[in-house]
C-alpha cells in the first residue's frame, strides 16, 4: 500500500534540536532509499510563521496570515512510501528522526 507520511513538528522543540538531527536525517534517507520500499523523499517546509491560509466563501477570498490550524505541532514536511501494510509504515514512521520532535501522520492513498 502507498502511504503519505506527514511530518508534524513541534516547532519550538525543533528549533532547539542539535545539529546531529540532519546527520540522522541523511542516514534515514539512505536507509529508506536502500530498503526497497519505493521511497519518495519529500521536501522540507518553512515554519508555520511563513504560512498563509486561503478560503473562498461565495465571491470573497479570505486570506489568513497563519497556518490552517494554530496548534503546537505544525506540518513541516512529508515523504511517501509503498509498503505491504500499516505495520511497516509504522516502523518507518518510528525510524524517521522527526518522530522525536513531533509526530508522523500516516495516510494511505486511495488505491488506484
Amino acid at each position, binding site marked *: 500500500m502507498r502511504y503519505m507520511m506527514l511530518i508534524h513538528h513541534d516547532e519550538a522543540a525543533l528549533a532547539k534540536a542539535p545539529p546531529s538531527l540532519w546527520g540522522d536525517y541523511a542516514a534515514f534517507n539512505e536507509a529508506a532509499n536502500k530498503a526497497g520500499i519505493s521511497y519518495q523523499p519529500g521536501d522540507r517546509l518553512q515554519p508555520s510563521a511563513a504560512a498563509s491560509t486561503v478560503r473562498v466563501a461565495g465571491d470573497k477570498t479570505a486570506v489568513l496570515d497563519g497556518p490552517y490550524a494554530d496548534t503546537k505541532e505544525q506540518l513541516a514536511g512529508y515523504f511517501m512510501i509503498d509498503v505491504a501494510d*500499516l*505495520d511497516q509504515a509504522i516502523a518507518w514512521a518510528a525510524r524517521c528522526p522527526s518522530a522525536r520532535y513531533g509526530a508522523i501522520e500516516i495516510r494511505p492513498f486511495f*488505491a488506484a
Partner: protein
Amino acid sequence: MAPSRSARSLRPEAPAATGDGASEAGRAAERVARESFGRLVAFLAVRTRDVAGAEDALAEAFAAALRQWPRSGVPENRAAWLLSVARRRGADMARRRAVEAGGAGRLALMADELKTAALSPEAIPDRRLALMFACAHPAIEPGARAPLILQTVLGLTAAGIAAAFLAPPGAMSQRLVRAKNRIRDAGIPFRIPEREELPERLGAVLEAIYAAYARGWGALDEDAPRLAEEAIWLGQVLVGLLPDEPEAKGMLALMLYAEARRGARRTGDGAFVPLEAQDVTLWDRDALAAAERLLSEASAAGPSGRYQIEAAIQSAHVARRLGGAATWPAIVALYDHLQALTRSPVVALNRAVALAETEGPRAGLAALEPLDADERLAAYQPYWAARGALLARAGRRAEAREALTLALGLADDPAVRAYLRARLEALANPSAD
C-alpha cells in the same frame, strides 16, 4: 489444548425422521454458523482485509443455507458448502461494486481464496488468530477491539455486543463499521506479530478476551453466560495457537478459576454469596483442575505476568477453601507483585483486604488510607463495600454504616444490594449477626 469446538469435529446429522426437518436444518445451520463463522471470515478476509465484505458474503451464504437445507438436506461438509455459496455471492458483489475504487481487486482476491478452498475444503487454513490480531491492532480504537473480536471471530450481533458492553446499539454498530473500514483502508495486517512485537500486541488480544469474560461474569442479562463461554473458548483457541505464551495460559486459567465458581456465587433464590461463604461442593472440579494445570505450565515456562499472578491468587483461594491451607500471606505477597506491575488502585484495594486477613482489620484500613483520596475509587462500589466491612470488623460502626450505605447506593446488581442491606442491618443489630 485443542479448542473444544471446531469445524473439524462436525459430524453429519442423522436425517430427520419426521416433519421437523426444517427446525433440524435450522439448528444445523445455527451450529455451523457458531462453529465456523470466525474461521470462514478470517479465511476470506485475510488477504483482502475486507472484513465487512467477507461477513456480507457469508451472511448471504448462511441465509441460503436456512432456505435450502430444510428442502435438500444438510450437506456433509457444511463449511465447504457455505464457502462455495459465499464464493458465488462474492463474485456477484464484485460485479456490483466494480465501479468502486479498489473494491473489485479485493473481491477478486477473495474469489481466488474461495477457488483454492473449493479444491480442498478440508484444508481451510485457520487464520482466526491473525484476524484477532488485526482486530486488536494498536491502530484500532481500544474500546472497539474486544467488540470487534466478538463480532468477527464469534459472529455476535452488534445488538448483542452492545448489550454486553452497556452501549447503545446504534453507537456500537457504527463503531464496529468504522473499525472494519479502518482495517481495510489503513492497511492493518492480518498476521501474528513477531516475537519482539508480541508483548504489546498480545496484551491487546488478552485484554479484549478478558474484557469479554469480565462482562460475561459481571453482567446480569441472559446473554452474559454465553459471552463468558465464548471468551473461554477464544482463550482456548489462543492457547492452542500460541502454546509457548505463558500469559495466554495464565489468562485462560484465570477465567476457568472464576467460571468454576459460577454455580456457587448465588443461592438458589439469587442472593449474593461471597467467596468465603461459598459452598465448595458446588465448585466445578474439572474446571479447577484444568486451571491448575494451565497455571503450572505457565509458571514453568517463564516470568510471571499479570494474568498468571491473578490466576495464582485464585489458586491460593482455592487451596485455602478446599484444603484449609493458610494461604493469606501468599495472597498478600502476590498482590504486592501485581501492584508493582499494574499500579492499579483496584489491586491495592484487594491487597488491603487480604492484609486484613493476616494482620487484622486495622492493618487493612491503614493499607487503604493512601487510596482514600483516589478519585478513581470514589464511585467504585467494591471499594466502599470492602471499606465498610473492615470498619465494621474494627468496631467503627458509624463510619462502617456510612461506607456501606455508599456501597449500597452504587451497587447495580440486586443480589449485591440485598447482601449490602443485610450487612447494614447486622451493623444496626450486632446481636442478630
